[in-house]
């Protein structure tokens, strides 16, 4: 067949010799004789920040998605991406109000990892002292009491439930003050 002659069957003779020793097209040798990747080829993904800043590199690395690549099924993509990036990008920001303060603040519950840190953050934010927490008596020794509104719309004392549960149901925080606070602190 004509095509077989064109194919240059000698080239199929298996040789594990050095690259560039055969009379293949120039296009082939460029790949083989260069030890470094050619500039127009995307480098491996472990690029350092220097090359990341280079416009040419970033142009190649902005992910214009190639159809069907990487080869994963659509249902796998659907399950993963929304949940994870949502969780990563947005923290759990809740409004914090304090009785008597002119404006509200916002705090990211993901950044403070537990109750002690939360209380410290609130205390710093509004310049108050919260008092000692105990399960039986609530916050003792202060006229300020941290409370939160839960999913059901009820105002609850901060600290009663496990931290994970708290972050999932806390809608907003309110630092109560004065007699109202004392009343709440006494409720078990």
């Amino acid at each position, binding site marked *: *067949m004509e*095509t*077989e002659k*064109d*194919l240059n069957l000698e*080239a*199929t003779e*298996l040789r594990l010799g050095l*690259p560039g020793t055969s009379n*293949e*097209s120039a*296009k*082939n040798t460029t*790949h*083989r004789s260069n*030890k*470094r*990747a050619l500039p127009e*080829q*995307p*480098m*491996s*993904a*472990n*690029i350092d920040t220097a090359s990341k800043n280079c416009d040419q590199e970033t142009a190649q*690395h*902005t*992910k214009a*998605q*190639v*159809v*069907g*690549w*990487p*080869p*994963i*099924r*659509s*249902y*796998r*993509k659907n*399950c*993963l*991406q929304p*949940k*994870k990036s949502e969780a990563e990008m947005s923290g759990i920001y809740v409004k914090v109000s304090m009785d008597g303060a002119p404006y509200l603040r916002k705090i990211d519950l993901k950044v403070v990892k537990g109750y002690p840190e939360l209380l410290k953050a609130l205390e710093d934010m509004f310049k108050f002292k919260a008092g000692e927490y105990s399960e039986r008596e609530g916050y003792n020794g202060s006229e300020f009491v941290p409370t939160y509104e839960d999913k059901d719309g009820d105002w609850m004392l901060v600290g009663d439930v*496990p931290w*994970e*549960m708290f972050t*999932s*149901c806390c809608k907003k925080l309110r630092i109560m003050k004065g007699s109202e606070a004392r009343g709440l602190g006494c409720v078990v």
Partner: protein
Amino acid sequence: MCVVFSFLFGLSLMHKKMEFPFPDEVLEHIFSFIQSDKDRNSVSMVCKSWYEIERWCRRKVFVGNCYAVSPRMVSRRFPEFRSIELKGKPHFADFNLVPDGWGGYVFPWIVEMAGAFPWLEEIKLKRMVVTDESLELIAKSFKKVKVLVLSSCEGFSTDGLGAIAASCKNLEELDLVDCEVDDLSGHWLSHFPESYTSLVSLNISCLVSDEVSFSALERLVGRCTNLRTLRLNRAVPLDKVADILRRAPQLVEFGTGTYAAELRPDVYSDLAGAFSSCKELKSLSGFWDVVPDYLPAIYPVCSKLTSLNLSYATIQSPELIKLVSHCPNLQRLLVLDYIEDSGLEALASSCKDLQELRVFPSDPYGVEPNVSLTERGLVAVSSGCPKLMSVLYFCRQMSNEALVTIAKNRPNFTRFRLCIIEPRTADYLTHEPLDVGFGAIVQYCKELQRLSLSGLLTDRVFEYIGKYAKKLEMLSVAFAGDSDLGLHHVLSGCESLRKLEIRDCPFGDKALLANAARLETMRSLWMSSCAVSFGACKLLGQKMPRLNVEVIDERGPPDSRPESCPVDKLYIYRTIAGPRFDMPPFVWTMEDDPSLLLS
């Protein structure tokens, strides 16, 4: 199987030489021990009488490409089959490379079988288009159907499933694996009548609706005392799992729904207690949206687990390490790359029975690595797990050195699929192509049946593959090679190759035409975004009447462009059924006779 063959070969010689050959019943009885399709095909080629006897007693028919043969041909040749397995679309359809509407319709098969095979017991379909109409026809026509497996199928809704549930009184297995189902609601489950108790296996994990009919599900599980496999879908909340497990403590394989709930001690202890009561559990899956604090609930069953699918579980390496260290008998693990190299090292030291590992990317489109998962993890498992045979691994860096080490560690690999996420990524240490690394894989792993390549690769890797990969049956290639030589090496060297799928490679006409005859010995060849011209496709179609050469091009008719223009997608498969007639407007089959060119 070699022993069986020697026996059969000897038997066939005796049979031919004897004056009074063995009665058919004897041969039939002997053939009944031969189950594998490949062996049955070989048996049928010994002589005419064996062909005849074999075709009457073949009970399981396997059709690897639904267009290779027509339904009528199958029913004529095998008048007594009870089980049929059909595959439709090419594998790359999984990654959206095959446009919608290409084909793979099961309906004509159901119609053909409905009349002639009312006693059909098993229907297994993969990558086929299954409509509600087809399901309704199955429900109506096959009263004895026991097994219905739909794998990667699409085109049907839960209404069709409802029809199956209502009518198939003998159904034992209903398995929906990775299907795209129009999930209208969970009410279809209540179509199983109260008198129905034969369910052994139910897999509904791919159903996406948030509505599930819990009471119907619980009642179904409760009354089907033979239930061994139950894979729930994401909509089933965690606090329902305990109820379900308590009704089916005999379960061997279980898939949870969402594995998240507010942390409550009562829910936790309920769950842990329910898992403990399942003494037969060997396989777990599901685990969507995992709340790590609930994971220890499964620790009681971990020591017996042989299969664990955590590929939806977005949990981090420390939790994964804790989990796998509880599972010393694990043979199969599917996991996200959150496991990281450290987790894989732990896996390598805890799970010495591991045979199959699949590591999926948690952030496939991110440019920077989001986890510390590199070639080191794969090297660790290849070194620590002596029985490891099958690997699917997504990562962002690789080196020839690592691949050579892996190959030498694990010459028993049968499936090696490596996906380096960025196309054409070179060896990160030397910046060279990964030819030598993959070359080592095919050289050392002499039993390799399936290989997927990635990274920067030249024609050299194909030289190695053609030379060494003599048992290779399926090869997947993407963004690789320099010239037609690459394709030529593979087609001329890989004697066992049945399926070849290629995308975005500079392979053109020469290698294809030079190896045209080889294509008839393979099931199929897929080439997309390559350099095969329309003219070559036409030529191939003309020369090879027993091949269907399909040009798939959504840009419009290929003859509206010069013949030298490359086609977008090309799907070539051997067939005795001739060209098909159910093609959409963007698919053309190249005809034998140029004057009858279909368009």
